């Protein structure tokens, strides 16, 4: 509810802002993925500080909302944590700004230290239902998933589930923070979220024997890694282009790296 309202407000606000300053005057609106939003906001703050007269605003709302906003011309830059659908790709272009791993997290007391792709799929399909079957202690597995449409979910489905569906009985939550909170408090739970958002309490386990460490995501060894995109329609305005250049510059990339993402430049 909150988010739906928020998304509407965001689009409305973004519309106002894109009206109030022409792109040369220096207003850039960036809208989209909840996963990227926090990182982009940090970059925008930094950019606004060092470039007075330019104003970059960042709003969350979801990958799809971001893509829609760019398509309709309401936002200058969209943020997407999923790849574009064919009909979207035909009208938009993307810039990869960083890479992110998707971590699989379990309760700290869980004895399981790693799962294979196949085991993970079995759990989310609803076929594997006891931790005993994947090397843990006797107890039900309670998979938690993101809602339909989430970029993180789309990536997880693409990389882990393949053609299989996530079980209808999987508990669904609308934010990475909520998933982390639930996993931290339920000994039987398992969830997935961006590596940068794991926090200190939940236990991120290895996938196919590779831990979701920074090095492993960067080197490409960790199997569940995805790109973070800026989505653009046609040629960006001057102010937007300058912000993109900044995001791809070494200092900005270094900031992203410090936050747990993997740099692309």
């Amino acid at each position, binding site marked *: 509810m909150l988010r739906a309202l928020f998304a509407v407000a965001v689009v409305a606000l973004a519309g106002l802002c894109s009206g109030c300053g022409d792109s040369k005057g220096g207003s850039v609106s960036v809208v989209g993925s909840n996963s990227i939003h926090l990182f982009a906001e940090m970059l925008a703050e930094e950019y606004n500080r060092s470039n007075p007269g330019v104003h970059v605003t960042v709003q969350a*709302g979801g990958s*799809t909302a971001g893509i829609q906003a760019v398509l309709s011309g309401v936002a200058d830059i969209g943020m997407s944590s999923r790849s574009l659908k064919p009909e979207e790709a035909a009208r938009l272009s993307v810039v990869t700004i960083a890479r992110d791993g998707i971590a699989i997290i379990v309760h700290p007391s869980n004895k399981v230290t790693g799962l294979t792709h196949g085991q993970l799929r079995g759990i989310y399909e609803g076929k594997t239902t006891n931790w005993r079957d994947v090397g843990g202690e006797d107890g039900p597995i309670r998979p938690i998933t993101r809602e339909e449409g989430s970029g993180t979910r789309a990536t997880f489905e693409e990389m882990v589930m393949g053609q299989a*569906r996530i079980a*209808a009985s999987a508990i669904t939550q*609308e934010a990475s923070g909520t998933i982390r909170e639930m996993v931290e408090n339920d000994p039987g739970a398992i969830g997935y979220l961006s590596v940068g958002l794991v926090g200190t309490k939940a236990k991120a386990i290895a996938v196919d024997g590779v831990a979701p460490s920074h090095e492993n995501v960067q080197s490409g060894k960790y199997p569940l890694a995805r790109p973070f995109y800026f989505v653009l329609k046609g040629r960006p305005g001057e102010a937007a282009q300058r912000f993109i250049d900044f995001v791809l510059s070494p200092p900005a990339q270094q900031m992203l790296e410090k936050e747990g993402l993997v740099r692309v430049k």
Partner: protein
Amino acid sequence: MRREKLIAVALAALALTAVSGLAVITAFIFKEGFPLMVKVGFKEFIFSSEWYPREGHFGIFPMIVGSLAVTAGAMAIGVVFGVGVAVLLTQFCPPRLVAILKPAIELLAGIPSVVYGFMGVVVLVPFIREHLGGSGFSVLAASIVLGIMVLPTVISISVDALQAVPRPYYEGSIALGATEWQTTHMVMVRAARSGIIAAVILGMGRAIGETMAVIMVAGNTIALPTSPLSAVRTLTSNIALEMGYAAGDHRAALFATGVILFLVIMVLNTAALALSRRRAKGAR
């Protein structure tokens, strides 16, 4: 005279804005959602349990059942406790205590729903998980949270209804030799029945429409609930969860979910009203 007419027109216009707001919202929801229902087929949309928007499957049966189950649970809790409290406050409570209790209960209505949801997540869900089993995110948890949330509505309207019963009814009953309890449940509650039913209807409206708190404690699975401990997704949560991301047919399907929610509420309200009218007639 002319001025009075002017004022009458102005007031009518003001009054109509509220109604036209409703009309515009209704028209909009139907306009956005109806075509998809036609496309998918009403039967498929309402009775299929397959909700896979990416694959073009839009079946909201589990959510209809979910909304009804959660609302029924909430009303079971809200009505028993709510009417109970109202009877206590009006019939058996010293006025000085009422002066403290009633505002306190009304304050309950001012607490934002996220707070209820948060309490549910932090206290209720782990309690259910540890003592009753399952994940804790369940029909039961949502019912309890909603049951508490509808209390202020049910209580304050029931209290008003009970207080509106003429004093002679009470005195007459006592004078005829009825005990206080007999007077309460055979005279006072019966006389206030239409008001109490109105309270229940309003409470039900709040329960079925509540979103935030339900999303937090219900678990939001797309499977059909099989027990009070199953996780469940309601119609409102379905809309709120996915609206931020949805596009195209998926978005239309969420509006169509809104259409069904609208119809469910209409049916429930009409049924409750009809029921209260018939009962009232029968009593006479």
